[in-house]
């Protein structure tokens, strides 16, 4: 019994694998179709209301029956949408099987909601076991499953949004496909992928923050990060201190005025170039501290230091440099 089921899952999965490359090819050809008028090469616009595609320049109607690709049903609340929609969630890179495989429910109930008999229950348990084994067939898939779980866990702990998780997952997949994993830990590569994607999305997290939620130490994280960036040619720009400002300011409960002032301090600093070689986190922390003082808001160095994970000494040093720059620009 279990044999027939397992073969079916296998072939279904294999078929969906075959389809995928073809799908992506079709996507490309669709993008290649240029939207120009066949008569005068003018710009084409789609008139949604009348279902027509017309040329903006000569008025030629290129297509008069546009296919509405949206759902044919209407829903007025989310419960109705759930009951009427016939499709599942979109595929995502954040799951090792892209969310395409089927799970056997855990409730032990049949389609009518009745509890299963003990015999059927046992059978379902065996089927679940086999289903799980076939969902993750080789070591690479098991590896991916664990890593993507890690990425999701860390991203949640750091409050990183969906797009960052998705990018991190893609970076990890690339690393796995390029055989960068042997010799490095799954956790290390997953953490560096997340760090890199947070930087790419413009919402950087400091290494200290990542280290707290990760299972690897900073040394391994930085080493793996540099390796991944070099091998995958990710070309990540140095983090901009300004990107840390809003987070620190809101955690300290500062006003918009102080936040604006902090950004201004950093911009002045960047113009004079005193930021080169300095940690962006430290600069951001000092700018936030300096801005709070300039706008008469009460924060202590130790508060800033806890929020930003930067020592008070660093804050004092950077703060002095930032104010010197500001005095310079005011005098000039």
């Amino acid at each position: 019994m279990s044999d027939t089921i397992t073969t079916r899952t296998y072939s279904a999965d294999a078929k969906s694998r075959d389809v995928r490359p073809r799908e992506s090819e079709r996507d490309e050809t669709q993008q290649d179709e240029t939207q120009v008028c066949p008569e005068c090469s003018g710009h084409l616009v789609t008139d949604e209301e009348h279902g027509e595609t017309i040329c903006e320049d000569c008025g030629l109607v290129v297509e008069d029956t546009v296919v509405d690709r949206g759902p044919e049903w209407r829903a007025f609340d989310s419960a109705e949408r759930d009951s009427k929609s016939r499709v599942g969630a979109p595929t995502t890179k954040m799951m090792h099987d892209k969310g395409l495989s089927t799970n056997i429910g855990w409730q032990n109930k049949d389609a009518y909601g009745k509890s299963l008999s003990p015999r059927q229950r046992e059978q379902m348990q065996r089927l679940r076991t086999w289903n799980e084994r076939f969902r993750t067939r080789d070591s690479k898939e098991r590896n991916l499953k664990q890593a993507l779980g890690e990425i999701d866990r860390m991203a949640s702990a750091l409050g990183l949004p969906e797009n960052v998780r998705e990018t991190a997952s893609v970076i990890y997949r690339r690393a796995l496909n390029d055989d960068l994993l042997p010799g490095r830990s799954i956790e290390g590569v997953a953490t560096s992928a997340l760090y890199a994607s947070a930087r790419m999305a413009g919402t950087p997290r400091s290494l200290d923050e990542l280290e707290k939620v990760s299972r690897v130490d900073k040394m391994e994280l930085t080493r793996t990060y540099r390796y991944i960036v070099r091998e995958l040619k990710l070309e990540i720009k140095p983090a901009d201190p300004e990107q840390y400002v809003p987070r620190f300011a809101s955690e300290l409960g500062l006003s918009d005025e102080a936040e604006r002032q902090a950004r201004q301090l950093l911009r002045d600093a960047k113009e004079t170039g005193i930021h080169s070689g300095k940690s962006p986190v430290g600069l951001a922390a000092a700018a936030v501290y300096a801005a709070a003082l300039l706008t008469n808001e009460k924060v202590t160095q130790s508060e800033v230091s806890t929020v930003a994970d930067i020592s008070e000494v660093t804050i004092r040093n950077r703060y002095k440099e930032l104010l010197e720059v500001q005095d310079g620009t005011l005098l000039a």
Partner: protein
Amino acid sequence: MTDPKDTINIENVVASTGIGQELDLQSVAMDLEGADYDPEQFPGLVYRTQEPKSAALIFRSGKIVCTGAKSTDDVHESLEIVFDKLRELQIPVDDDPEITVQNIVTSADLGENLNLNAIAIGLGLENIEYEPEQFPGLVYRLDEPSVVALLFGSGKLVITGGKQPTDAEAAVDVIISRLSELGLLNGSF
């Protein structure tokens, strides 16, 4: 303004050589005065020469690494001293074992502050490594000469990986011309 090439200073030269036969480091350590040998800490025997100042690491296989010297001549001189000492211990050493310089570390100063962020983007992010959160210097790997340069915000730089003393000069030339092309140097050279 001083020419950055005048500020080039060799900080360390590492060279390797060998005497072609295995050594019993324990007995060498007993007989050789001033030798440090602690196999639990480091498998090699460390022998320091004072004039010129350097350290020779002597290994069981008979290979010797000389480090800490300030010039290639110093390396040869201090290795000669080591060879003489070994000959005194009745260990046969060729007259002139081949000495290969493995690495030369050089420092230099461009004499002006650098905006590393701009340089990172100007030189192309694929050629450099700049992570101010991890290390304040910018790592620039040159193809010709094949050395690695660390550029710092103060304008000082460290060049490592060179095999000849001239590599450092060539590297400084390349760096200056690349930075001037990008308009990132204000200096008069």
